[in-house]
């Protein structure tokens, strides 16, 4: 492998790994904020207990998300310095905005939330977790603005003299239609992840308690959490479908090669079928693909709302891209890896069925105030929890691998002044040996961290919601210092590392 392949593997591995934790944080922070809001408004202690329980899981996860995110801020420069030189004028801006507008809020208010239970009045403390929740979502917006620009490089012009991309319109970058589809899609995926997580753990506990004969606790504590999770999944699921469809339609226009590859659509077709199962010879040769199960006309309909519309195939697109973007070079393959794009796209969609199964089963079994001890619910719950994580991973693999061979993809819609092949973006001065070292270091370190993360998450999930949780806020009369006892003003911290 050369430095380019190694750098791509490293970027892909560290980014997909980072994005295991990110969607859970983005979705769980608002859910914890909702739980705490219900507690503050109703004074129902159950919701305080749930807040603390899911809050701990959120924090274990938050830490590793933050830690693995540090790499992201640096590795564009480290491994992709030629890319950075080329796009920095436009791509750097959303990254800097993300740090200034979102990271500062997240980290500062998370510290206040973790350590502030006994220091801040209830409502201010509640506002802190909401600030965290909003900031995590804002952060997603900015980083997706950067990514969407790579898919659809708007608001930018090419400076012939410097050979660099130059931003001409920040509003175009921040209102990129690719971003306006990708942002809701990513956020709803994050909420689906968190909803599945909350409902999954709570459903597993509910079944366990009912089977142990503790129906009361199951009803009081876990059923509400199951319901919160299920509602979140339902809303997120609908949003995910709508935004995904919008994104897909845009992609047919903006990156036809990505969608043709995703469907293994070899030649231009009227009324193209949607492929459910195709098998290729793994040579990335379109002719070697056999389609087994297809739904006639559906692909054309999904792309253009018309069952008989024409869709461009791989062969045509290769010719068109060579003519338009080849700059005289004729040996560049403009079609992304067929096997990876085809299967990652299907796995992304297929994995979402895990959440759907949990949502529907849990909804049915907890209908009209019921609690359930059905062991199938517990099984589905455990199997469903990882599925949205995998769906997100496949989604990113699809959208990034489908953009190849470009790192900044020209769009045949006319947004094609800026384009850069991935192989031209890699750092020239970083040797293959150096990348081997860093890749090995990341693999070892990330494996250790993943094991620790999983064991901690599992351990805290299996511990369950605590039986009591004290309201330690300073506006609780019980916590006012006793004037006769000076030591009472100087109590131990309610939380310490």
């Amino acid at each position, binding site marked *: 492998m050369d430095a380019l392949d190694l750098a791509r593997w490293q970027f892909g591995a560290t980014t997909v790994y980072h994005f295991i934790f990110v969607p859970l944080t983005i979705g769980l922070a608002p859910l914890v904020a909702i739980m705490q809001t219900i507690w503050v408004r109703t004074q129902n202690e159950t919701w305080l207990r749930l807040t603390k329980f899911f809050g701990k899981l959120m924090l274990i996860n938050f830490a590793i998300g933050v830690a693995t995110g540090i790499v992201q801020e640096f590795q564009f420069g480290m491994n992709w310095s030629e890319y950075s030189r080329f796009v920095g004028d436009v791509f750097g801006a959303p990254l800097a905005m993300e740090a200034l507008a979102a990271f500062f809020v997240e980290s500062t208010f998370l510290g206040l939330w973790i350590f502030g239970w006994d220091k801040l009045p209830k409502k201010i403390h509640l506002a802190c977790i909401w600030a965290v929740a909003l900031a995590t979502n804002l952060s997603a917006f900015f980083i997706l603005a950067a990514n969407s620009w790579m898919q659809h490089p708007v608001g930018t012009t090419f400076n012939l003299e410097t050979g660099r991309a130059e*931003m001409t319109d920040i509003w175009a970058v921040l209102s990129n239609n690719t971003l306006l589809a990708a942002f809701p899609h990513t956020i709803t995926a994050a909420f689906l992840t968190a909803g599945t997580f909350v409902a999954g753990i709570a459903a597993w506990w509910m079944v366990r308690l009912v089977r142990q004969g503790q129906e009361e606790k199951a009803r009081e504590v876990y059923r509400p959490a199951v319901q919160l999770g299920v509602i979140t999944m339902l809303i997120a699921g609908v949003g995910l479908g709508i935004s995904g469809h919008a994104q897909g339609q845009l992609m047919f226009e903006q990156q036809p090669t990505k969608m043709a590859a995703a469907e293994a659509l070899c030649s231009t077709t009227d009324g193209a079928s949607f492929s459910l199962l195709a098998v290729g010879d793994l040579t990335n040769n379109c002719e070697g693909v056999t389609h087994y199960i297809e739904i006639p006309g559906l692909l054309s309909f999904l792309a253009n709302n018309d069952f008989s519309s024409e869709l461009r195939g791989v062969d045509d697109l290769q010719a068109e891209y060579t003519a338009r973007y080849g700059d005289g070079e004729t040996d560049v393959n403009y079609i992304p890896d067929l096997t990876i794009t085809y299967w990652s796209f299907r796995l992304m969609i297929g994995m979402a069925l895990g959440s759907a199964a949990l949502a529907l089963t849990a909804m049915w079994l907890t209908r009209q105030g019921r609690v359930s001890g059905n062991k199938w619910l517990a099984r589905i719950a455990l199997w469903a929890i990882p599925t949205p994580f995998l769906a997100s991973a496949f989604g990113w693999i699809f959208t990034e691998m489908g953009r190849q061979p470009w790192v900044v993809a020209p769009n045949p819609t006319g947004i094609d002044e800026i384009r850069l092949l991935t192989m031209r973006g890699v750092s020239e001065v970083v040797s293959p040996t150096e990348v081997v070292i860093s890749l090995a270091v990341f693999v070892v370190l990330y494996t250790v961290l993943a094991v620790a993360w999983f064991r901690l998450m599992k351990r805290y999930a299996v511990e369950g919601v605590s039986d009591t949780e004290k309201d330690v806020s300073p506006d609780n009369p019980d916590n006012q210092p006793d004037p006769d006892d000076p030591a009472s003003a100087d109590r131990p911290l309610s939380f310490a*590392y």
Partner: protein
Amino acid sequence: MDLSILWFGLIAVLWTGYLVLEGFDFGVGMLLPFLGKDDKNRRVMINTIGPVWDGNEVWLLTAGGATFAAFPEWYATMFSGFYLPLLLILVALIVRVVAFEWRGKINTDTWRAWIDRAIVFGSYVPAILWGVAFANLVRGVELDADHQYVGGFFALLNPFALLGGVTTGLLFLTHGAIFLALKTSGEIHEKSSKVASTLSVITLVVAAAWAIWAQLAFSVAWTWAAVAVAAIGLVAVVIATRLRREGWAFIASAVVIVAAVVLIFGSMYPDVMPALNPANSLSIEAASSTPYTLTVMTWVAAFLTPLVLIYQGWTYWVFRKRISAEHIPEHAGLTFAQVTARKDTASAARS
């Protein structure tokens, strides 16, 4: 005023925020094995920075992002050129983040022992390597005509840069000891006051040597002012730590760090990366983004930076109280082996 020069200054401001703030939390981590002889005391130390270290670290991410946005060439050349040292810094920062956050989650001595190693490693490595990196920027590095770093890894480990690393290491140790003295009472307070006062003298000697070397060999006349301010600050740290005036000592050590950044950036000016062959130096002008991008970023920074200062300042106010071993609650963490504990709670709940 030329926006690229303004942004050169703003990048310096971001690094100042990072080094002044994360500097003391590095110091606390570095002092952990020396001052925290038992777990209670180690927890006192860690909890002085508990609510704030993460926010401090964001100054680094912002400096990185802002360099990318305002000086893409600088970002590209420096980060690809300093590849292996940066990798080491990243590893250190990663383990440090999870170590702080996960330390209290598992209540066993083995877990804590590993976590504390991670905190110590995660604090020393960046505290020293940032000094090495900046000293190299002051000294100049080997760039080719395309502004690519071609010096290799070992060229970064020259004597001047290594002394720079020792200097930042010592500065942060002192800064951290002063912070601990300021934020604790009881045993840790006593110990950290003493250590701060001893460290301040060593730091004075080493930092003065490095600063004068930097000034004589690589800088311009006006940065003597920064050297002078740093010197006054260092002497003030020595005096204030002896008098146990912790607040003043902290301000003085913060001033030293500010002066150090001024010296570093002042000596680099008008380049962002001076090269050993001056013809190849990467200048502010050549590295910077377009005026349009800089204008956008200026508005964003002008609007958001004051807000950041306000709410981060508020955080320090909320957690202003000194803490001591008496304030540290019992461990709330679980253990990985849960089987027996679970059965107990389950049977207790049934009965």
